[in-house]
């Protein structure tokens, strides 16, 4: 019974690694953002293969049926990755805002420069 769950999670882990490898190879995923995924896949594989370690962990946290610890580990990895993305998105939002503001300021400066070129005598602070 147990062995099937282990094979399943091993397959998921390996499958994930293959997909990640392909995505990075085709430049569709940055290495920086793949690292957490790769770490998660490796952890999953480690615990699916090394059964006694999984059982030790399960008894440690009070899980009677060891394979369900696998789900807990996968969930935990997922939460970490989602949190990481929230931080990344917040950063991107801030950068986008600053860029938009800079665009607005530069647009106006270009306008001023254009007008100066057309009419050389123009008082400052229109």
């Amino acid at each position, binding site marked *: 019974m147990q062995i099937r769950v282990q094979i399943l999670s091993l397959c998921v882990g390996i499958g994930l690694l293959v997909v990640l490898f392909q995505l990075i190879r085709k430049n569709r995923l940055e290495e920086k953002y793949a690292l957490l995924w790769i770490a998660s896949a490796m952890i999953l594989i480690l615990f699916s293969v090394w059964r006694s370690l999984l059982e030790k962990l399960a008894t440690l946290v009070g899980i009677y049926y060891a394979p369900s610890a696998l789900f807990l580990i996968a969930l935990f990895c997922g939460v970490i990755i989602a949190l990481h993305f929230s931080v990344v998105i917040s950063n991107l939002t801030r950068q986008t*805002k600053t860029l*938009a*503001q800079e*665009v*607005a*300021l530069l*647009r*106006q400066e270009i306008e001023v420069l254009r007008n100066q070129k057309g009419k050389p005598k123009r008082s400052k*602070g*229109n």
Partner: protein
Amino acid sequence: MRRSTLRILAIVPAYNEMYSVGKVVQEILELPFPIDVVVVDDGSTDETAKVARSKGAVVLRLPFNLGIGGAVQTGFRYAVRHGYDVAVQVDGDGQHIPSEIPRLLDALETQGADVVIGSRFLGAKKHRSSWARRVGIWIFSWVNSWVLRTPITDNTSGFRAFNRRTIQFLSENYPQDYPEPESVVLLGLNRFSIVEIPVEMRERAFGRSSISPFRAVYYMVKVLFCIFMDMFKEKNKM
């Protein structure tokens, strides 16, 4: 008068306000002392930028809608970049009365404050608004007064004057969606002195108030959470 030697900038955030922004700009420029007007067009789809420019304002056009906070902050960045001494924030929808600006500036000068807020609730005149709005205003007033240990009556007023030091700070730190209440807390916690003076405001003539009931509750929760978190954030090193 010292006012003539200070460089003063009026920052007018406007999102689809072509019917009111022209009058706002015009009335500001008619004030009896030198003042520049910058209209921050927050990604309008109408003629806001054109109208503002034709009335003599400098127009900063954001490439897409950032929300009022991002728009006002653009104005602060402009003020810093062009070395203004004082900035006055005036809404583009026409609810703020430009002839009240001198009173904000006077308070800034005579009371030595970093920030002057024009408050609807300090004067004798009763302000009419919906009960939901009143509840919101009351909550912010209570929360902010408690956080800052000093009474602030009109936290949602966007009619404000700032000195140079404050402009510098706000150009780097300005809250996003519904920024007025949070910016009061942010300024207070960073030891900027805040003074309120009574002002009159008009009812908005054109355009829609942008908030539906559901969003109002969402903003309320969000802003209160932001204010709560501000108490634990690193204070600025200025």
